């Protein structure tokens, strides 16, 4: 059916417009129907489109909406492209998105700007769908920028608080830095290939006629954009601050969908990266480093949402590791499973915060397992999933990543696998640490908070159950095989099945070891952990300070930039040059007038003499030069 993809994209946009313009006046019930109903409808349309895709044997659906621009011989169209990869992304976006919209009914109840929240959330869905369904890099970039905008609006949703507003601004600006790289990459690709349609770009690069240097440069530039959007080193600094936004926002945007845009971009542009091994290695290295360092930071965080934020950064690093060694489909698989259990974790955290009336410090929690059973149960399931315990979802996807990190013929190495495994151990450790400190042990809550602990309303808990369910079963969908026609698995360095099974067993042991270690260290309310912290005080300070990256940026980048803005642009450029030139012109006119006014003496004799001079001049001119 023609126009299906366009309908899919436009449904959330309609929600944004209606709720944005009329929601405030028409009340929460109306906002709910529009703001949640439309994403659910979008999910239904996505499923329908997927059925059509499958019916056509995986042949991509292409829908051209309109021609944006004609420049010389180049045509820039807005068209949508549905193949298996974008179908998976679209289903995640609309499915998890719709669930989170339902959750938000409970979480945001009674908020002053209820309609604005749902309007922004729908706006985000619209842009994200543009991003994953766009055929050309241009449409993708529009969606890319748009989700950045929606993220800014939603992080700073309670903008009356200056810190929250600042967090939104930080996210947007950091993203923009990455986008500069993205744009340069787009320009490079356009001048090389002559088009921005992604399927045609992949074909052109696969043809092998494009020099490796250009592919590497384009790959690196596009990856810079991905580091901004997907919070990898060095542009990861915005994601922890983004926790200032409402928790459902953190779940949707900063766990399940927007931050995965970078993964999607690299996977989509696999044609380029297959021709640029240097760029791929860079991606793998940065991904792995980010994963490891973020995991170490998560170990010592005391805010429940910050732990999950760094966990997200770490898991994204894993996905980039997979991309870097050529296992594109596996990265998307981990994206898929991660969406479910990370959303479940964030929403569970939101449920905890809701139950504790706004408390977010895990040092003041504990003993909640019996009092909020639904939240606790789903949180446990999701934690086990992310730790990689079989047969839950995370086990399958993470294990595949570690296998290819070791065995991929396109850059796999032992050191990748080793550091990756260490990180997996840390993941299990900090996640179970979180579970223990929040839900188990003796209560460390403040008394008045403890008295009012209550389970969340059904819109919230039902979504938690659904997401926990998917965290269990999502790994059983053989996504890499499903995507293999599009994104084939890389060749292996050594094909010993025994090695693969050994690795799987080792990975399970690592996860269990993390669980046990967490129990040991944090089981009694964290006293043993505190003892270790005191022994390694300096290391602890570095980790708690997030390796002081923000402070380094402040010193190296922001202070000089502020100096330049003040001294060069404000004082020199604006005041002296611009204002000065305008004032100078005015002063020139004034002074010129001051000089010329001396001719007006008011004296009759003088005027007559001026007439004589003028007459002489005219006569000379007429009689000699005419």
């Amino acid at each position: 059916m023609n126009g299906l993809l366009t309908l899919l994209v436009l449904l959330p946009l309609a929600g944004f417009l209606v709720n944005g313009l009329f929601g405030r006046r028409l009340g929460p019930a109306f906002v709910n129907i529009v703001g949640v109903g439309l994403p659910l409808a979008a999910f239904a349309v996505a499923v329908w489109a997927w059925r059509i895709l499958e019916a056509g044997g995986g042949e991509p659906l292409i829908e051209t909406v309109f021609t944006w621009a004609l420049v010389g011989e180049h045509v820039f169209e807005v068209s949508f492209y549905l193949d298996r990869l974008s179908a998976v992304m679209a289903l995640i976006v609309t499915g998890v998105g719709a669930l989170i919209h339902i959750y938000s009914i409970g979480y945001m109840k009674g908020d002053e700007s209820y309609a604005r929240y749902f309007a922004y959330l729908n706006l985000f869905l619209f842009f994200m769908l543009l991003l994953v369904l766009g055929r050309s890099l241009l449409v993708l970039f529009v969606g890319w920028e748009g989700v950045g905008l929606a993220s800014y609006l939603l992080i700073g949703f309670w903008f009356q608080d200056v810190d929250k507003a600042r967090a939104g601004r930080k996210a947007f600006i950091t993203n923009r830095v990455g986008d500069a790289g993205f744009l340069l990459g787009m320009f490079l690709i356009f001048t090389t290939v002559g088009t921005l349609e992604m399927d045609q770009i992949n074909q052109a690069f696969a043809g092998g006629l494009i020099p490796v240097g250009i592919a590497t440069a384009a790959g690196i530039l596009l990856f810079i954009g991905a580091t901004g959007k997907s919070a990898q080193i060095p542009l990861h600094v915005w994601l922890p601050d983004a926790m200032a936004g409402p928790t459902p926002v953190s779940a949707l945007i900063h766990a399940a969908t927007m931050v995965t845009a970078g993964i999607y971009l690299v996977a989509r542009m696999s044609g380029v990266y297959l021709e640029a091994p240097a760029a791929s290695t860079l991606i793998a290295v940065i991904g792995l480093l980010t994963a490891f360092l973020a995991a170490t930071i998560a170990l010592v965080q005391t805010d429940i949402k910050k732990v999950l934020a760094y966990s997200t950064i770490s898991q994204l690093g894993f996905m980039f590791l997979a991309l870097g060694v050529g296992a594109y489909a596996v990265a998307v698989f981990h994206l898929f499973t991660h969406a479910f259990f990370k959303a479940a974790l964030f929403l569970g955290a939101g449920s905890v915060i809701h139950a504790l009336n706004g408390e977010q410090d895990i040092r003041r929690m504990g003993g909640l397992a019996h009092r909020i059973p639904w939240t606790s149960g789903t949180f446990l399931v999701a934690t086990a999933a992310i730790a990689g315990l079989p047969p839950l979802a995370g086990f399958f996807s993470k294990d595949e990543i570690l296998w290819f990190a070791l065995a991929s013929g396109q850059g796999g190495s032992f050191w990748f696998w080793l550091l990756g495994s260490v990180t997996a151990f840390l993941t299990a450790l900090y996640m179970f640490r979180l579970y223990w400190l929040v839900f188990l042990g003796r209560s460390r809550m403040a008394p008045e908070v403890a008295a009012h602990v209550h389970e969340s309303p059904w819109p919230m808990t039902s979504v938690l159950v659904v997401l926990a369910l998917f965290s269990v079963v999502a790994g059983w969908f053989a996504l890499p095989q499903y995507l293999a026609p599009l994104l084939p698995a890389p060749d292996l360095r050594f094909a010993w099945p025994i090695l693969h099974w050994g690795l799987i067993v080792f990975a399970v042991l690592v996860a269990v070891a993390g669980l046990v270690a967490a129990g040991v260290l944090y089981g009694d309310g964290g006293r043993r952990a505190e003892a270790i912290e005191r022994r390694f005080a300096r290391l602890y300070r570095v980790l708690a300070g997030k390796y002081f990256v923000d402070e380094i940026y402040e010193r190296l980048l922001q202070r000089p930039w502020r100096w330049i803005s003040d001294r060069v642009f404000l004082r020199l450029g604006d005041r002296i040059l611009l204002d000065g030139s305008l004032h100078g012109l005015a002063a020139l006119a004034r002074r010129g007038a001051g000089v010329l006014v001396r001719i007006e003496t008011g004296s009759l004799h003088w005027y007559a003499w001026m007439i004589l001079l003028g007459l002489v001049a005219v006569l000379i001119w007429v009689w000699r030069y005419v």
Partner: protein
Amino acid sequence: MTIETVFLLVFALGALTGAVAMFFLRHPMRVALALIGTMVSLAAIYAQLGMHVIAVFQVLIYVGAVMVFMIYAIMLLDVRDRSFTERFSPLLVAGLAGLLLLVGVLVDGLLRGQPFAAVDVPPEAFSVGTFAIVFMEQFWVYFALTAVLLLVAEIAASAVIDIRRRGQDVAAAQAERGNERG
């Protein structure tokens, strides 16, 4: 050197003398008389050129009306003020320099010019009869218009003077009343 040329020279000299004398005479009445001398010399030149009608009109209108009017004005005004003791303005030197400049340019332009082609002039061209016929045929509109405009100007002038006088009367009456009270 024909007699006509001599006449022209003599009266031209007269005109120039009058003009130059106007510069140095102190009393405006004497300046007026010098100007009259210049005008009469010019009338003589016109007559010598054969345009008797014009010559007569020059004397009648210019000397007889314009200059007489000016002499009335001189008589009405007390002329013995600063302009009497100091004849020349501050721009005397500048003015004289300008004079030399202007004369130089004019002479230069004149000398560059081509000699004039002589035209056959019928003898009756500038007689009164021809004048009258041309006057009535071609120029009567302009003269009529001029007459109307002069009439309008005259009425306007009297109106202005009347308003002024009335205004001054009112002001004088108010001043008197003020004096009586005070």
